[in-house]
């Protein structure tokens, strides 16, 4: 099968100019030579802590910001080489759902306008009657009511607003949706509603998702494959069950160990990871994770490990992944 989206050696740096007198500007490598692909109908999860570059990656996919180098190929078209008119046309197939349902809807527009705007932009708007029917249908698809069309965003709760944001992305019948932390601003009871909705519409419309989140349980629940990012690099990418069942990277292992589980009788077996996430402006040499890594050796300080296949379909960037793999296996046997 051919991937719907293919990303090759994508990099993006930001220049930060110091405001202090005589301060030098520094460069921050937000995304550092990453490659991955997503197949039609698949959900790829992108997970990592703040500042790891996951949101920047999402924006690069949609070309909301320009990449420094590398390529994004969507449906056999290289996004970076499209003219602005071509890009606009292509965005019909590439939509985004944003994190903050309070700031991502224009407060001065009625729901009707919010949903009709993408249709108009892409010349898909029909006259009166059919448009009305289509918008009502859209709202019903996301679990709202046609009577909500003439309301303003402030008349809705956070969960309902997120549904409107989803309806807006769905309006133009896209192939790929980039969802950047779509549920992290919502309360748990509402979060489950929106996750279910996203899975339903994926089935119904055959959507492909790039799902960006920091919540490992949500990612496990919704994703087929998962990519873990740390300081601009992908450190591990594999089918979800392998990431969660037999990780090959110490950072993934530490992340999973740190997630508090809703089970008061569970004994925590791992020490939490020490230290802070280093500044992406001045990342550590070699493997970026080495100062916090319990497995680190001299080679990790000098040589950055390649992302390579450690098991079928399971890529990790670590010099010592065989040690982790053996350790988590012993963990499993002792717990059984």
């Amino acid at each position, binding site marked *: 099968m051919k991937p719907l989206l293919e990303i090759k050696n994508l990099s993006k740096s930001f220049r930060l100019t110091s405001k202090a007198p005589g301060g030098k500007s520094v460069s921050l490598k937000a995304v550092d030579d990453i490659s991955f692909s997503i197949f039609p109908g698949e959900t790829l999860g992108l997970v990592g*802590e*703040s500042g790891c570059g996951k949101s920047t990656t999402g924006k690069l996919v949609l070309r909301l910001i320009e990449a420094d180098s590398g390529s994004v190929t969507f449906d056999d078209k290289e996004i970076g080489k499209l003219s602005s008119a071509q890009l606009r046309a292509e965005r019909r197939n590439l939509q985004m759902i944003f994190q903050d349902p309070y700031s991502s809807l224009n407060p001065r527009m009625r729901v009707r306008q919010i949903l009709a705007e993408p249709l108009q932009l892409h010349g898909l708007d029909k006259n009166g009657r059919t448009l009305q029917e289509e918008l009502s249908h859209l709202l019903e698809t996301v679990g709202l009511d046609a009577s909500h069309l003439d309301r303003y965003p402030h008349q809705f*709760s*956070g*969960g*309902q607003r997120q549904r409107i944001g989803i309806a807006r992305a769905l309006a133009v019948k896209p192939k790929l949706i980039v969802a950047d932390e779509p549920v992290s601003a919502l*309360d*748990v*009871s*509402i*979060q*489950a*509603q929106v*996750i*279910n909705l996203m*899975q339903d519409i994926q089935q119904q419309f055959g959507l492909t998702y790039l799902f960006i989140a*920091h919540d*490992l*349980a*949500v990612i*496990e*629940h919704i994703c087929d494959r998962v990519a873990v990012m740390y300081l601009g690099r992908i450190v591990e990418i594999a089918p979800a069950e392998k990431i*969660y069942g037999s990780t090959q990277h110490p950072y993934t292992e*530490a*992340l*999973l*160990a*740190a*997630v*508090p*589980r*809703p*089970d*008061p*009788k*569970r004994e*925590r077996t791992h020490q*939490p*990871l*020490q230290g*802070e*996430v280093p500044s992406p402006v001045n990342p550590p040499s070699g493997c970026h994770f080495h100062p916090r890594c319990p497995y680190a050796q001299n080679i990790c300080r000098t040589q950055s490990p390649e992302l390579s296949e450690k098991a079928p379909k399971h890529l990790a960037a670590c010099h010592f992944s065989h040690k982790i793999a053996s350790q988590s296996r012993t963990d499993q046997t002792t717990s059984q």
Partner: protein
Amino acid sequence: MQPLLDIRNLKTYFHTDKGVIKAVDDISFSLVKGETLALVGESGCGKSVTALSLLRLVPPPGKIVGGEILFDNTNLLLLPENDMRRIRGNRMSMVFQEPMTALNPVLRIGDQIAEILQLHKGLERNQALERSAELLAEVGIPDPEQRLRDYPHQLSGGLRQRVIIAISLACRPEILIADEPTTALDVTIQAQIMDLLGRLRDENEMALLLITHDLGVVAESADRVAIMYAGLIVEQATVVDLFEHGSHPYTLGLLASVPRLGGKKGRLTPISGQVPPPLARPSGCPFRNRCPEAFDRCAEACPELKELSPGHLVRCWRRT
């Protein structure tokens, strides 16, 4: 055991132009030395207002309109403001949610910690700064002397939250209220901060009131749990009881709606509908519109919090 803090029928209302918002509507609970009670609920359930009420820091137009807050047998609601100031930050202190805004951006870290020691403990500035460095070391901040001279913007979120914890612990409070202390932090840092709070609680025999919406954090850190909904406590139990024999339909709904690591895939079971706006709560039980088990009686009157088994209280007509 004699409770250290005993809250009885606390009511905090906000008198707005549109009507009276009952943010905290008659809640009672107690805290004993060395224990962690988690106050759990979704946005708008009144958990943060409860915390602010305990310290008498409710912002206007909010007002505590009823009840008692007994701290060491003294009703805090009857104390003159001057006496209250001697308790606040000293014997009872608070860790705020947002590490990016809870510190003063134009004061050095050292001065912000030293201030509280000078105020409550009467230390000289030099002594206070020395003690501040010790406190920073205690919460696991490397190079504490160096950090004293830093401004908040020079520190990461995790370090700022540690500074806030150091400030709140400076006077060795008997009660620490932590309002979503790790919500703004990444998961690896969250684990460090929760470990730190637990260790300091044990060392100082502090009582910890942990306000959170994260059931994972509750399971790992709390001894007892109170679940809040629409200004009311709907269930209260030991942490093991709550997770294994949770009884209130809202508690069950919360537990079922969280995706779990290693849990079954497939559909989640959300709670239908949404939290009612505070001015449009339904009559009777405030949860009845979303409750799969609601029946006629739920609309007629709000159930009382009743004991299901020793230490396990639930507010539901179906259960009592």
